[in-house]
């Protein structure tokens, strides 16, 4: 196992980690603002992937340029999932805001099952294939092959992350989010509409998950109604690993989980990769229960 092998796995790991990070951001933001672990989040990812394949197939059949299809579908799917998340929040979480955390958690689990089955009933049990014309192609550096999709995933993850940082730290909405996260009652007293801020947080998180869903669909070639479950769990682990409630933490956690998985599969065996990802999680939580970036919560928490 030589240098090329290592670099190839590094690229694989960064790509997978980028996807996990995007999904983890939604978990972290929602947790940061209302301390709810939104188990239905993985389903927004799946719904985004499906919306993407439907839109891209339709637009491509209209003779649009592949990149235009991709851009339009990306924006529309993100918007769709944002609306879906706001509806879910209204329906399943808002009525339970004063109830115990367990009630909201159960509601989230129920919502996850409901959305997954909804996808199954409306879209069928078969995998749906993404058009492959957009995603093929790449280049080689020595013996290391890099596909355009991998670059696209990493670039889009970075762009969305920068955008999110601007939203949270440079805008009025972001300031309101951070204030609501710190103290809902007090921020409401100074005139912040906390219900609106919570809805926006859900929408932004789900939009990011939808982007991840499309990228996964393009990268791997197909989507399936069960696709949200496993990445959802992994992204949750990534959010906890990074320090739940922390945006940079979600990115770091996602990259770590992605890398560990790929390197465990590459150097040990594919069957143990999940085990190692979760061993790292347990190890970090044992020695640093707040997660890697769990300090200074007040500054960076959404």
């Amino acid at each position, binding site marked *: 196992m030589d240098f090329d*092998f290592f670099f190839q796995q590094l690229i694989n790991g960064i790509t*997978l980690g980028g996807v996990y990070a995007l999904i983890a951001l939604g978990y972290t933001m929602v947790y940061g603002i209302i301390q709810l672990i939104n188990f239905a989040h993985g389903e927004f990812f799946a719904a985004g992937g499906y919306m993407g394949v439907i839109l891209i197939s339709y637009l491509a059949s209209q003779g649009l340029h592949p990149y235009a299809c991709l851009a339009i579908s990306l924006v529309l799917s993100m918007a769709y999932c944002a609306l879906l998340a706001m509806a879910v929040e209204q329906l399943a979480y808002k009525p339970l805001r004063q109830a115990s955390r367990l009630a909201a958690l159960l509601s989230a689990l129920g919502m996850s099952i409901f959305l997954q089955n909804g996808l199954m009933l409306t879209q069928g*049990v078969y*995998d749906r294939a993404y058009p*492959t014309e957009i995603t093929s192609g790449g280049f080689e550096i020595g013996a290391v092959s890099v596909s355009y999709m991998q670059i696209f995933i990493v670039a889009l993850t970075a762009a969305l992350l920068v955008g999110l940082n601007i939203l949270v730290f440079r805008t009025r909405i972001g300031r309101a989010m951070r204030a609501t996260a710190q103290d809902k009652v007090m921020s409401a007293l100074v005139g912040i509409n906390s219900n609106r801020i919570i809805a926006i947080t859900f929408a932004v998180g789900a939009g990011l998950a939808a982007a991840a869903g499309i990228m996964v669909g393009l990268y*791997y*070639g197909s989507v399936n109604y069960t696709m949200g479950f496993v*990445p959802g769990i992994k992204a949750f682990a990534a959010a906890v690993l990074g320090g739940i409630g922390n945006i940079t933490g979600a990115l770091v956690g996602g990259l770590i989980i992605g890398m560990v998985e790929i390197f465990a599969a*590459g150097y040990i065996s594919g069957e143990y990769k999940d085990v190692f990802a979760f061993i790292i999680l347990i190890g970090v939580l044992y020695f640093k229960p707040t997660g890697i970036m769990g300090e200074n919560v007040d500054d960076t928490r959404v």
Partner: protein
Amino acid sequence: MKRLLVLAVALLALGLLLAGCGGEEKKAEQVLKIGTMSPLTGPYAADGNDIRQGAEIAVEVFTEAGGMPGFSKIEVFSEDTACDPKQAVAAANKLINEKVTAVVGAYCSSSTIPASETLAEENIIMLTPASTNPKVTERGLPYMFRTCGRDDHQAPAAVKFMKDVEGVKTIFIVDDKTTYSQGLAEGVAAAAAAAGIQVLEHDHVNQGDKDYSAVLTKVKAANPDLFYISLQNSATGALMVIQAKRMGIDAILMGQDAVYHPKLMEIAKADAEGMYCTFGAIDKDAPKFKEFLSKYQAKTGNEPGAYSAYAFDSATAYLMAAKAAGTTDPAKVREEMLKLDFTGASKQIKYEENGDSGSNYTVYKVQDGKFVPYWNSLTGEKY
């Protein structure tokens, strides 16, 4: 007033419902009940639904041809196993409660084996259209039949092809650790070693994985002549094929009977071109297959899946045997089952004493988005 009206409507609806039930009871029809069990949800739902539809069409065809004497109709009860042993046993118990006389299923060998034990206690005949693990028919259960082939025939057939036709010297094997896929992969590894083919590595992935980049990087580094893919799902098989091509792996790709499915090409498209799969030979010009095909397409609007024809033949075999026996008594039906020798939609069906019906593995090659028969393992010749 409004409330009264609602109440009245509700009572009326209830009354109609009860009246409906009563009417049904009075007729006292003799219904022959047949069960199917297969994964109708989850990652294997594609194959599972193929099996259910195959059996339903067999019943439809059989009913049109005159049905079963003494029974006014034949009804199919379908249960979902989700390819989970516990749920398979629960499905078996549900079918027992429905008083089915035979069950077509299941799909995953790991579901078929425990479910067949439960069904055996009630002397219910089980015909599997898809479970290829040798253990299925090796436990001495009198009412267990298998319409598809066996892994211990499939593995040597695949290896013979690699050596004789492709002149392969090194292979890399990946499976996803199910009873079926791992058993088959181990069979291939053993047969390859015996045939003098070097197994560079036998690695595993997890069920439900989407990202295979790590293991494929290994394959690329090992640079085998042939990459053997043993996954229990055509959709994940397609993902692996796409990613292998993108990774620049130029080894010959070969899959097995669970990877063999029209959905593979639908997802992998051009990336699947040139890959090989082992599957039982199906004579697509046979009249029985054509009849099955036209019915299947008319009813479902889809191409038949990998196991549809086997499910069709399994149900047909049972119905023919029961008709010949003139009863649903399992011992007598079993006697008739063993006497059967007919051309089904999938192959010539003749059950042996242990319930097997022989294997006829053929290597298919993907050409222009279709599986084309390429090499016959029984004759050792190309088509």
